[in-house]
């Protein structure tokens, strides 16, 4: 039996009528209470009855609503795909409409929201690509996604595969930003090591200073910063000489 058959107008109409009736009764009770046209016992009794009727009505509406929550086989497949997607990405799902918003991070500071309509899965989903992504890729990034290009209705890929590929492309595009952030952390770390090395040197702890300056050189080499690397190589020679003099 289809849902539209289950949800007969009679069911909905009857519930709405009951609700309208209750609204009227509560309005009348309020008027009676304000004009003192009701005794305390009558008021309390009526209130209790109405609360009971409200409870019953709510249950009936929820029961009817529950009938819509039963999923068809197709909806179950979509629901499973969305669940799989939610295991790897942060998403907002509307399981009954087959639409979702997927949150992607291209770098620490760059995030995107991509809406997806997979209500026709196993047909290929439709991606609502935000304009900024389209602008970055000077055209339609969707046409570059191999997962979508090679879509097979017989053996459809998982939705999550599309987003993994999309995220990979975005991360590659924003690689420079990622590197800058990574380098920023390395530079901050190097600064700390230089301070520690200088303190050790001033205290005459040449071994410690030597090791710390060596770390500074490694970080500089990693950053391809030849100038700083050369500067601290000289510093190490200087420390070795001072250590020998001691």
């Amino acid at each position, binding site marked *: 039996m*289809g*849902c*539209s058959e289950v*949800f007969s107008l009679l069911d*909905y109409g009857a*519930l*709405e009528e009951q*609700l309208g009736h*209750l*609204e009227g009764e*509560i309005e009348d*009770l*309020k008027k009676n*209470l304000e004009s003192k046209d009701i005794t*305390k016992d009558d*008021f*309390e009794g009526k*209130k209790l009855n*109405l*609360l009971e009727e*409200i409870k019953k*009505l*709510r249950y009936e*509406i*929820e029961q*009817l*609503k529950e009938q*819509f929550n039963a999923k068809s086989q197709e909806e179950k497949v979509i629901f499973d795909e969305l669940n799989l997607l939610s295991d790897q990405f942060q998403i*907002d799902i*509307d399981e*009954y*409409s*087959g*639409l979702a*918003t997927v949150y992607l991070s291209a770098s620490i500071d760059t995030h995107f929201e991509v*809406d997806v*309509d997979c*209500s026709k899965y196993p047909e290929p989903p*439709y991606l*609502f690509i935000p304009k900024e992504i389209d602008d970055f890729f000077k055209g339609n990034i969707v046409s570059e996604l191999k997962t979508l290009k090679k879509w097979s209705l017989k053996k459809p890929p998982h939705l999550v595969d599309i987003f993994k590929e999309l995220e990979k492309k975005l991360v590659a595009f924003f690689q420079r930003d990622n590197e800058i952030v990574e380098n920023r952390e390395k530079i901050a770390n190097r600064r700390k090591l230089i301070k520690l090395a200088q303190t050790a040197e001033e205290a005459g702890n040449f071994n410690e200073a030597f090791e710390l300056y060596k770390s500074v050189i490694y970080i500089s080499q990693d950053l391809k910063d030849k100038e700083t690397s050369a500067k601290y190589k000289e510093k190490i020679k200087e420390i070795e000489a001072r250590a020998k003099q001691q």
Partner: protein
Amino acid sequence: MPSNNEEIESQLYELRALRNRARKQRANNELEQAKELYSNAIDVAKKLKSNEDVEQIEKIVKKIELDLLLQRVAKIEQNLNQMTWAE
């Protein structure tokens, strides 16, 4: 019946966009607005002769209608609970 592929594509996009906007409004508990958008989406789906879409969206609209009834129920319950006898 849409006259050409371009028109179908455009209507399909409109249908997806309407459903997507409606979904977000529903998630924000803006039920009346969501219902309105879903109703518009049904009109587009009918133009596309997509019975499957019509049926799917009608199901969502009916759930929204029931949620609206539940909101009214919550409101009268609150009103009733606030009524107290005063000497």
